[in-house]
Structures are given as structure tokens and as C-alpha cells.
């Protein structure tokens, strides 16, 4: 037998009720993404170079954009 359905409300105006997971989902995954000339360095060795423009987007439109870019890259490579 299935467990009964549950509904929980958490108001962002009452910080104690807000789970850390909700906060992390928002501050890490949602909002303006700025990227440009980023070099990630480990022990003096440059590992990643990202040279992109600025995008102002929601997470799902960002994913659509990334997927579309990947398809173009696959076709041209």
C-alpha cells in the first residue's frame, strides 16, 4: 500500500523552515551566469579555459542553450 501523500510549505521569510537544499538549489543553480576567460589552475598547471559571453537565463534555457551548442559542436567536429 502506498504511503499517504504529504504537502509541506516553507516560507522564505521564515529562514528556519527553509531547508539548506532549497537555498543551495537557488544560489548555485539559478540566476545570472557570468563566464569569461576563466582559468582554473591546479598546482601551477592551467586545466580549463572557458571563453564565453555573458548569459542571462533560467536554468532550463541554459540547458537548452548548452545542448544546442553541443549539437553544433558535434556536427562541426
Amino acid at each position: 500500500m502506498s504511503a499517504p501523500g504529504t504537502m509541506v510549505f516553507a516560507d522564505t521569510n521564515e529562514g528556519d523552515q527553509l531547508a539548506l537544499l532549497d537555498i543551495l538549489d537557488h544560489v548555485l543553480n539559478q540566476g545570472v551566469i557570468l563566464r569569461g576567460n576563466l582559468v582554473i589552475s591546479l598546482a601551477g598547471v592551467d586545466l580549463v579555459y572557458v571563453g564565453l559571453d555573458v548569459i542571462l537565463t533560467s536554468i532550463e534555457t541554459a540547458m537548452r542553450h548548452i545542448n544546442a551548442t553541443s549539437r553544433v559542436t558535434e556536427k562541426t567536429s
Partner: protein
Amino acid sequence: MSILLYCVTEKSELPRLGKGVAGLPVLSVEHGEIAGLFSPGTCAEDWKGSPLKESARQFHQVLHRIFESRAIIPFCFPTLMHETPELARHLETNLLEYVAQLEKFRTSVQMDITITQADSARATRQASGAEYLRERQKQSEELDRVASQLCTHADSPTRDWRTRPAQHGLKVFALLDRDSVEVFNSSLQQFRVPPGLGIRITGPWPVTAFLELRQVG
């Protein structure tokens, strides 16, 4: 040294900005009608010093303080720039985009609804691959059906909806006016949650799921 960015908002009548991540002051750079909020003199060590979750919580508190009274466009945490002139140039370059978004969502907030299945691992217990896929499809259809019912239930105070898959479930985002949050919550409280499902409603949040894609220089 660098600066940590919080958000862009309209510059008029900014509330008291207070302290930010790691106790650093929150300041603003203004251009045209907008302001970019940041903490100066930060380096990665400032926010790596305390646990990341604590820094993220402090970042959220800054955003929340400002969002309480006005629309904001938050930056993802952590977004760093080298110096304030770089932020000023960014605001200048993207002024029209920011103004348009802030204008469009001036009185709007976002509510997040997470629908999860209590037994999301049910599919993985199936004997064959075909059964697994059938079970996954069944679960997905059930989530879509409940999301649709929720949207119908709270349609009156809601101006727009978005959905996206989430771990073990589905996320639904509702766009509504700031003063409609209570009506929205009340209408959902009447919703009968199907057995085996959990629904978590959080908000109000900035309208990040509804910002439109803009490729800006």
C-alpha cells in the same frame, strides 16, 4: 583580490545593505537606473574559509533582504569579478537587458513546487530493462498529471508556469504577483495529494526560472 557579486536591482531607494558573505560589507555600483550589489576586497579564501553551505546561506540572506521590498536579478553564487570598474562596465553593457527584466518582473515573485515520489526507486527493482523503462514512464506520467492538476488548482493567482525534471521527481515554478502569495498557498492547501507523493512548496523567490535568455556582450 576580487569582488563578489550578489545581484542587480533598480537603484532607487535601496534598503540598508548590511553585511554580506564572511561579514564583508555589501556595497553598490550604479549605472543608469540600476545598481549592482557586491562585497569588495574578497578573495576565494574569504568564502572558502567557512563551510560553503554557510557562505551560501549568508549569500541567500543578502539577496532575501533586498528581495523583500523589490525585484532583483541574482547572480549565481559565487560570481567574482576583478574590480568594481569591471562591474560598472558590465552594467553599462547590459543596461537595457537588466532594465527590461526588472521592469517586466517588478511586482513578481516565484513559488517553487517540488513533487517527489516516496518510492522513486521502484523502477530500479524491475526484473528487466523493458519493465524498468515502463515503470519510469509510468512514474513520469504520474508526476506530469499531478503537476497539471496543481497548475489547474492554483491557476487563478498564477500568471505563468514552468516545469523541469528534478531528482526523484519534478519541479514546478509558478510566477505570481507579490501580493498573491497567500492566495496561492491557500488554494494549494485544498489540493488532495495522491498517495505515495510528497509535495514541497517554497517561496517567494526571485523569478529566476522566468528570466529570458539573452546573449549579451
